[in-house]
């Protein structure tokens, strides 16, 4: 019968149309909210999603996974009296590995000896050139540069970030990437413990 294929196809769109309402009703019967809350959004991007699929931005926003990466930032630890202990040692690996070469760093020198000290005087990232590849965060040996979750960066001018704008506390990092932060903390502790054990071992024969 001519037209059978079209009808078959239309049954698919017909089903899709009603799915949204059936799903709404089933959520109401379960006494749960389907829109504008986290559970609803999560369900809409799971394998069981049916019917309406879109997320009503900006009232609703997709939930970013932990690994989501968008523009790097620098991590500092909060020392006593609110002192910012910048983790970056200005070793320059991030600047070297950066594919579009959008990071540039001025290394600090000790004013007395002229030797470099592990701390950046200036640290710039050109956010308009950055391609969000995540290499800087991946290869940083000091866990000092990490990828952010902040997607709203619209600006009138050029997004060149300086040290002041790049620095964010470790607590923020722990918040957006709890799993990674915990793993890194664990690795750091293990390293310190190994170092202490080694120091003890080398110190003991002398005494």
């Amino acid at each position: 019968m001519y037209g059978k294929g079209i009808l078959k196809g239309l049954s698919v769109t017909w089903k899709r149309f009603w799915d949204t309402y059936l799903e709404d009703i089933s959520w109401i019967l379960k006494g749960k909210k389907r829109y504008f809350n986290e559970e609803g959004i999560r369900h809409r991007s799971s394998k069981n999603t049916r019917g309406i699929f879109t997320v009503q931005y900006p009232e609703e926003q997709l939930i970013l996974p932990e690994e989501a990466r968008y523009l790097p930032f620098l991590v500092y630890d909060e020392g006593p009296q609110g002192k910012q202990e910048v983790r970056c040692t200005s070793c320059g690996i991030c600047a070297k590995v950066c594919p579009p070469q959008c990071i540039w760093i001025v290394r600090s020198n000790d004013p007395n000896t002229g030797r470099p000290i592990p701390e950046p005087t200036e640290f710039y990232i050109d956010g308009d050139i950055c391609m969000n590849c995540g290499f800087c965060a991946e290869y940083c040996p000091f866990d000092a540069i990490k990828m952010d979750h902040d997607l709203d960066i619209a600006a009138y001018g050029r997004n060149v970030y300086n040290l002041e704008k790049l620095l964010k506390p470790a607590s923020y990092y722990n918040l957006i990437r709890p799993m990674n932060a915990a793993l890194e903390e664990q690795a750091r502790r293990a390293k310190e413990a190994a170092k202490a054990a080694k120091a003890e071992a080398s110190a003991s024969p002398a005494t």
Partner: protein
Amino acid sequence: MTTPVLTPIADLTARFPGSVTKDERAGYSGFLVAKENLLEVAAAIRDEFGYDLLTAVTGVDYLAENKMEVVYHAYKTTGGPGLVFKVQVDRIDPVTVPSLVNIWPGVDFQEREAWDLLGIKFDGHPDLRRILMWEGYQGHPLRKDWKEPFFEEEVKPFKSRWPDGKHVFAEEKNPFRDNLNFPKNFDPDAYQPEAEKDLYSSLERFTLKSESGLKTDQIVVNMGPHHPSTHGVLRVAVTLEGETIMGLKPVMGYLHRNHDKIGERCTFLQILPYTDRLDYFNSMSNNFGYVITVEKLMKIPVAERAEYIRVIMAELSRIQNHLIFIGMLLNDLGTMYTPSLYAFEERELILDIFEAVSGARMMCNYFRFGGVVRDIPEDVMQKIKGLVQDRLPAKTDEMDRFLSENEVLVGRLKGVHVINAEDAAKFSVTGPVLRAAGVPYDLRRADPYGIYDRFDFDVAVRTHGDMMDNFLIRFDEIRQSLRILEQALKQIPQGPINSQKPQYQVRVPAGEAYGRIESPKGELAYYVVSNGKPNPYRYHVRPPSFVNLTAIEHICRGTKIQDFVALLAMLDIVMGELDR
């Protein structure tokens, strides 16, 4: 499940003593053919040795040796390893090499590209114009003595960035000074570009003559670069008689950024995120092709678990690419948005997985030499399993039910011939288009890479080579990918995800490597030459969209203009990869 019998590589030196020698540079392979004998040797390679598919032609500029080299990679459509042969010529302009366009017509665009970017003239090429750069462009950018505007340093990392932090913004440099060369007294405001004489004269030369006997006028129509159906910024100049296409020339390069040159400036690792941007629908596949090429050069093993993760990601990528293909094809045919949005739903769910493992939805940058960046978390693994086992098979069937029997669509697609098997191989067409024409040539089986030889799957193949077959073969391939995924998810072992220590500068021994994979659009290959330094000496991409498009003129001449849009969609081109 059998892989092709590995036939020994043909011994060209015995067949052509004197004119063919083995390439004996360390790390290189293949044969060096004397320029005078190239046509004879190439004809023998095709007819006597049976290498009917010339996949890649590219050049290398050996500035220090004062040589230009043209590298050819020939394969058999029955599978098995390839044959590499090269021609070396002195680097004195004009550098000329005989064109192989009469032996393998598929070299057409690639020879034009080599002329455009490297300045190698191909004698006997009927239409040797620039292809990626614009007409009137000065110089050949891939030559080693060519410097781009705002040239900063030969290779990355630039020394100005650290430790002194001396950075200059590109826009602060005056674009009309520095490295740009302009004729004397050039006034940019008064500049009037020449009409595209070359293009139109070539279009005229290749236009069919009217045989109807009627006195009719032919008109030239430019489709694109901003035509909604050309999938980006492809422009096609078409000569029409009535509504029949009599002549056709694609014009490209509107999205050209010279990916090859960017690659040669970068270190081996830094190229990886740039490959994401080739075929931006399948960044996972692009990564895959590049890392296996460099791994070939480095001779390093890949961690077992990472091999499985790579297969999982590449096949998920194929599924979403084919779904989008189906949706976008319907968009081109006038079913605005409903099928493509249904396809996008599944794609979004797959991209969610990519984002969870790699951090980005499209520009994944997930593969590393020796493995992948990070493991798949357990909850994401569950999501992949849920998608592969429950959702995607059902949704593929739903899409099939939705479209495949629709009388309007069938009427539009059935019987409209795309390309037959013989012509497809001649024009170096690969991927689903070749398979829909009846050639069961799938690199996952024909020349297995990674761990594809461990999986049980069928090479999707159809026989008519019409648009309907090209449409349906995508469904077949999705189903086969799901089969591979099911097995991969069952077999994936625990263990490390990289065989190497993470390092930001890898050591790559000198030599050349040609790595190829079956990307969703066809054969995606990389040709990398290393001279032991941190940056590749030559880095070349053989994108499937670009080479498949070589056949578009052959496919479309004589058909109706309304079918052109659908025929172009069948080739599944993506401009990020086509223009590079």
